């Protein structure tokens, strides 16, 4: 009947498992696919990333050179990063602030 009592006391003496978000945010874990960034100086605007994107979140045009990401469509799979011939795309572990 009192099987759970030990766990209850342990929970009472332990620190909370949660944190007071948004005042205290968790440090991003290395290797996490948090948000997509581009180095426009290296990009040749070939459009391969937008062709391969499974969510159609990228739009690339030439004349004028534009590279546009729709952050609400992006599923952060990293497929564009793999196919980019110039390696100008990368995923950073911090989550993007799109507010």
């Amino acid at each position, binding site marked *: *009947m009192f*099987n*759970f009592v*030990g*766990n*209850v006391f*342990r*929970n009472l003496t332990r620190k909370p*498992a949660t944190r007071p978000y948004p005042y205290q945010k968790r440090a991003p*874990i*290395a*290797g*996490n*696919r948090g948000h997509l960034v581009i180095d426009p100086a290296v990009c040749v605007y070939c459009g391969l990333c937008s062709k*391969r994107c*499974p*969510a159609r979140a990228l739009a690339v045009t030439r004349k004028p050179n534009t590279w546009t990401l729709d952050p609400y469509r992006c*599923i*952060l*799979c*990293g*497929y564009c990063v*793999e196919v980019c011939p110039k390696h100008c795309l990368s*995923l950073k572990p911090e989550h993007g602030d799109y507010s």
Partner: protein
Amino acid sequence: MAKITVIPFGPQHPVLPEPIQLRLELKDEKVVSAIPALGYVHRGLEKLVETKDYLQTVYLVERVCGICSFIHSVAYCQGIEEMMGVEVPPRARFLRVIWSETHRLHSHLLWLGLLADSFGFENLFMQVWRAREAVLDLQESTAGSRVILGVCCVGGVRRDIDEAGRDQIKATLDRLEQDLHRIVKPILKDYSVQHRTVGVGQISRELTFERGAVGPVARAAGIAQDLRQTGYAAYSELDFQPVVETAGDCYARMLVRFREMSQSIELIRRAMERMPVSPISVPVKGNPDGEIVSRVEQPRGEVVYYLKGNGSKNLARMRIRTPTFANIPALLAMLPGCELANVPVITLSIDPCISCTER
């Protein structure tokens, strides 16, 4: 003679994480029959394969289910690889096992929390979900995402687990094993838990077989059927034996999942020990042509992928039969004769995933 009353259970109900309706015919407080109504979260994912190429579809099938996403991508990739005659490197096969088993762990922990919540054991719900958080953190650090990992690809996997990752997996599994040890006794020996689960939603081995149940529902009724026995990915090298119970009630289904969690921990440890050094993927050229059926074991049971290629980059057809779809007929056999108050516990005992079912 008591009057028959029809009560709609769902689609919105406090214990249901996803919408399904069961129209319950009751005689006083006893269920006489149940009629399911599905279709609340149909998304038409199978149709989308016509607009995505077969490499993009990997990310699509991962989104069929928000819990066992990686295993969906394994089923799909194995089917395409078999169709195209692609040999996956051995290390990739072991990595697929590791992430499949972390998915099984967090799925069973999530289910256990929801079951505890369904009979009002809030403390246990909190305790189990806290333990699950460690598995999600592990997936985030090794694969880059918490649930929808996006690491499986046609020809292998996209990420390797290095030495630091292996140390972290070992530490997390040790801690998780301790957490499970602490909660196993309060759950399995507790009077209230036994009162709500032992003998509740019982189904015989014969009826389970007849209704075509899969996964823990079938194994809890004594059917030793687990797709991992076929040795897909690297399971053939990990001495896998299915977990089987015989009672066929909610308690037996809980026992099966508990033992499967311990088994998953052991399988991950073995996979890390026996994982060879090799590339993690091979390049894939050409387009799939032909048709194939790919089957793997998800936390809820067997998932079946039918894939048909026509030599173009888009598949001609994809059909998915998910485990919950196979378990609903068994659920309908469990409900007649039970008390209305036990319907939520019995429904949750099959671990229903409605988004999977409706795709």
